[in-house]
């Protein structure tokens, strides 16, 4: 804990002594920490991927602070990210709710026709007792987890955006939402629809229901969500 400045390129504004500037994009600045008294720990940030420690300097909106050695994005604030994330989460709940119950694809061949909803797709596995577990897993991955995650984000972000104190158990809620992130697969399912259509296009005539377009919109919404979600900003807001 007794570093001295050794890098002549050190030139980060806002940096204390013993700091060197790191790789930045845009106008973001993150700085290598030197000696740090315990009270200053709150101003530091550690890369979750490689454990490198920096002095956190809030980048300008739309700029990003990036880890110097593994290039993980550490801080990426956006203007009105909170409002946008709330809007996206509301849209996700509405879209999945509607797409789950209404028939979203319809096939026709040899005078017979059939339509299915998203829930119907999950229930396709329930015909065989051996595959019952898959019905639950698929329903969870494409309906329950994405909806739960969107609701948790609404619960956590709404008070922050309204400048109110954090909701009760907001930290646990956000922690759960983060843990669920890899298991929220609505957009994977949406792409799966496209693949399935290619596979049966020569077998039968296919019609898209409204829910199919809803799931297509969902893919875009999830991308928007990932762009605007700055975990560092949320956690620091919850700390106040």
């Amino acid at each position, binding site marked *: *804990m007794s570093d001295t400045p050794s890098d002549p*390129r050190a030139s980060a504004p806002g940096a204390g002594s013993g700091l060197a*500037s790191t*790789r930045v994009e845009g106008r973001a600045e993150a700085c*290598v*920490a030197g000696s740090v008294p315990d009270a200053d*720990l*709150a101003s*530091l*940030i*550690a890369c*979750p*991927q*490689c*454990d*490198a*420690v920096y002095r956190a300097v809030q980048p300008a909106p739309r700029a990003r602070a990036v880890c*110097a*050695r*593994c290039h993980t994005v550490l801080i990426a604030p956006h203007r009105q990210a909170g409002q946008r994330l709330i809007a996206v989460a509301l849209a996700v709940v509405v879209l999945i709710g509607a797409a789950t119950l209404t028939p979203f694809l319809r096939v026709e*061949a*040899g005078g*017979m026709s*059939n*339509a*299915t909803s998203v829930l119907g*797709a*999950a*229930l*396709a*596995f329930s*015909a*065989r007792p*051996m*595959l019952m577990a*898959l019905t639950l*897993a*698929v329903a969870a991955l*494409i309906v329950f987890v994405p909806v739960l995650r969107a609701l948790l984000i609404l619960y956590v972000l709404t008070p922050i955006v309204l400048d109110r104190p954090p909701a009760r158990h907001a*930290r*646990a809620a*956000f*922690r759960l939402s983060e843990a669920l992130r*890899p*298991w929220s*697969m609505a957009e994977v*399912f949406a*792409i*799966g*629809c496209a693949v*399935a259509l*290619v*596979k*049966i296009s*020569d*077998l*039968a005539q296919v019609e898209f229901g409204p829910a199919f377009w809803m799931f297509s919109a969902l893919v875009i919404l999830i991308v928007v969500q990932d762009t605007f979600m700055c*975990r*560092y900003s949320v*956690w620091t807001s919850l700390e106040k």
Partner: protein
Amino acid sequence: MDVSGEVKSARDMGLVACTRCTRVWPAGTRSCARCGQWLHPREPLSLQRVWAWWSLGLIAYVPANLYPMLETRTLVSTQDNTIVGGAVEIAGHGSWGIAAVILTASVLIPIGKFLAVAGLALSVAHGSHVSRTRRQQLYEVVEYIGRWSMIDVFVVAILSALVQLGAVVSISPGPASLFFAVSVIATMLSAQSFDSRLLWDGPDPSPAPRSRLA
């Protein structure tokens, strides 16, 4: 990027970092007061858990390929298709592009993930000639791709829910779909168990890591 030599890890500074919210605490702190995550300088038993999930994923991947994924019944015939069998049949119809996509998504990528996770775990235990940056990139690719492999299971679900046209043609899921889902989920858990900070504890294959990657 020239500064990477001076970057210090939280552990080297006598600190412990929270991997969920990026806050740092004095070494020995048990849980993060900001987000509640349990703190460990490095995840305990990380590699053991990686290998445990990895083995389950690999074991489940075998029946996923041996049993039929889809069972197609038409007026005249009943046909069971394994993953590879289905792709071969589609190629036989002349749709080489679709067959290539299916083989890539269901065979090449899963096998690639097994090799990549095993390679990363071995590199932590035994060192590697590949630079840490490159291995970190490999890890991020594996983590990103993991969930997309569930697409095969979803396609089976959509096809069997949709194609129920009485006597004309009907499709139902085969037992391989369950094994394939177990394999994908176990591989995801294997990748999640890997503590990527371990990659950065070892030395880089110096002196010029970038030039040795060719």
